[in-house]
């Protein structure tokens, strides 16, 4: 029998607001334990939540971008459970009237195009962090993350393969980054996934018993956990055993999922409307305003880069893979850089420099005007490209002044053909063997001669004119 895997995702995304969802403490990552806290986010008695305006705005923007229906009258609910990372012993979330519902996300995989339906999107608060200290055999509760705003995006069980899941997550990540509502850094936990998975005989309609996998913090882990869990369930069924509905934890080191203790599974969250937060009623004007302000997303940008700038599909894909790079590219073009040249610099030098420094585009110091100036100098024939790359390396980390650097280091391209001709003649004179080799048909020897001329001119000559002059002197 062949089996089909059925997967639904619950993705928690941390919103890029300055302050927490219900108090004015910073959301900055890190910090000493319990230093980003106040009586509200540590659940002190008598304190009350007040909703951050930006959280609502970001959640609605995300809902719109995921093609959801925005709930005009929305409320918060309390989800009650005891755990030391939750100081109020309830999480403020949305169950009955989430901010957005019924969305759709088109994805593209090697197997073709598909639409993933979004069941709902809601706002909620993050919990704190628990760290066990084996020396004192006590767990430390750090509430810095408590109250950091999240949106949870719940899909319908529309995925059939790990590839589809990854394609969806890539799309989600790209969309949210373009919107500016989240930086989606998985390693800092700002994008986290729970995977609901069941299997069924191919061609049947019913849903099998599902398990929920938590603790998935990289695309790789998600893909491997899905493959592992599908296989585990199929084997169970084939052995005549039953799949138990439970929450399973993915263990990255062991490459396996294992069941969490059943007590943690027994839950009755006793949701009820949060009395401390008045409802949210969104007007058409508010929604129209946000709709009008929605930025161009990756999909549209890729199409436009190809149509408007004539970039190849590959280039468009590379540049739009990150909203910061796309913005950088558009700024370069706006500053007069030829699109293809701008794209080449980004895909070559910029990405290379970032990768050797293990940096994210958003942390890059180099600004578009600096690179645009460099590209212009090359275009005007004032710098040759090799020298320009050296200048790039020199200014990348500080966004230093290009013109000043070129002047200070005397790097301006030598456009004096007379001088090039004199040097070339000297080089030919000094290297009779190479001249002979070249004339005997060894193309490599010509490269050597060009290199010698460039060396004499400290790399500042225009390679094209060096080529032309050498060939002329060699009698061609």
């Amino acid at each position: 029998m062949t089996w089909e895997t059925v997967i639904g995702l619950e993705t928690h995304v941390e919103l890029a607001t300055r302050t927490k969802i219900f108090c004015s403490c910073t959301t900055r990552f890190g910090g000493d334990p319990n230093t980003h806290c106040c009586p509200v986010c540590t659940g002190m008695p008598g304190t009350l939540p007040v909703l951050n305006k930006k959280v609502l705005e970001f959640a609605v923007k995300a809902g719109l971008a995921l093609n959801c229906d925005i709930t005009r009258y929305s409320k918060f609910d309390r989800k009650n459970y005891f755990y030391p990372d939750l100081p109020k012993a309830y999480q403020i979330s949305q169950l009955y009237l989430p901010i957005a519902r019924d969305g759709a996300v088109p994805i593209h995989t090697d197997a073709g195009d598909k639409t993933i339906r979004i069941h709902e999107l809601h706002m909620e608060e993050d919990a704190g962090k628990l760290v066990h200290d084996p020396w004192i055999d006590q767990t430390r509760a750090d509430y810095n993350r408590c109250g950091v705003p999240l949106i949870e995006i719940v899909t319908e069980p529309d995925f059939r393969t790990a590839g589809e899941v990854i394609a969806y997550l890539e799309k989600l990540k790209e969309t949210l980054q373009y919107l500016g509502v989240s930086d989606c850094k998985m390693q800092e936990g700002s994008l986290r996934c729970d995977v609901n998975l069941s299997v069924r005989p191919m061609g049947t309609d019913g849903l099998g018993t599902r398990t929920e996998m938590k603790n998935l913090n990289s695309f790789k882990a998600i893909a491997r956990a899905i493959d592992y869990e599908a296989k585990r369930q199929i084997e169970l069924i084939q052995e005549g055993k039953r799949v138990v509905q439970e929450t399973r934890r993915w263990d990255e080191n062991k490459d396996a999922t294992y069941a969490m203790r059943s007590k943690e599974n027994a839950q009755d969250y006793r949701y009820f409307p949060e009395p401390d937060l008045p409802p949210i009623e969104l007007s058409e004007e508010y929604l129209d305003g946000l709709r009008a302000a929605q930025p161009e997303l990756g999909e549209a940008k890729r199409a436009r880069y190809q149509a408007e700038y004539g970039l190849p599909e590959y280039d468009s894909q590379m540049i739009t893979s990150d909203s910061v790079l796309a913005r950088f590219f558009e700024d370069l073009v706006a500053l007069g850089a030829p699109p293809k040249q701008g794209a080449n610099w980004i895909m070559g030098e910029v990405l290379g420099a970032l990768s050797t420094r293990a940096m994210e585009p958003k942390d890059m110091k180099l600004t578009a005007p600096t690179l645009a100036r460099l590209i212009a100098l090359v275009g005007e024939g004032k710098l040759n490209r090799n020298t320009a790359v050296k200048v790039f390396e020199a200014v990348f980390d500080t966004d230093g002044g290009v013109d000043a650097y070129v002047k200070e280091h005397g790097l301006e391209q030598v456009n004096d053909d007379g001088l090039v001709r004199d040097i070339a003649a000297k080089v030919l004179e000094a290297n009779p063997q190479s001249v002979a080799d070249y004339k005997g048909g060894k193309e490599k020897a010509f490269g050597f001669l060009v290199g010698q001329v460039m060396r004499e001119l400290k790399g500042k000559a225009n390679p094209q004119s060096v080529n032309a002059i050498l060939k002329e002197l060699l009698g061609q």
Partner: protein
Amino acid sequence: MNIDTEMVDYIAELSRLELQTGEKQAMTAQLEQIIAYMNVLNKLDTTGVEPMSHVFPVKNVLREDEVVPSQDRAELLAGAPVPDEEAFLVPKAVD
């Protein structure tokens, strides 16, 4: 709905409360009596009545996204039953 000791055990577990055997009997009887009394609400037909969680039409109470300095950590931790200079301490809670 009849409240029995099994139900009381269940809600006590959810509430993180423990009842001794004698106490449990008494509590069960009281809750049973109280809940039986509450069933008087069933006399009232509320079909189509929207549940009212907030009594006033107050809505959209929002704050600006502006950081206010957090509270001094020592003050926040001062009332913790088991003191530590940087965190609240609990028995092992991480798997």
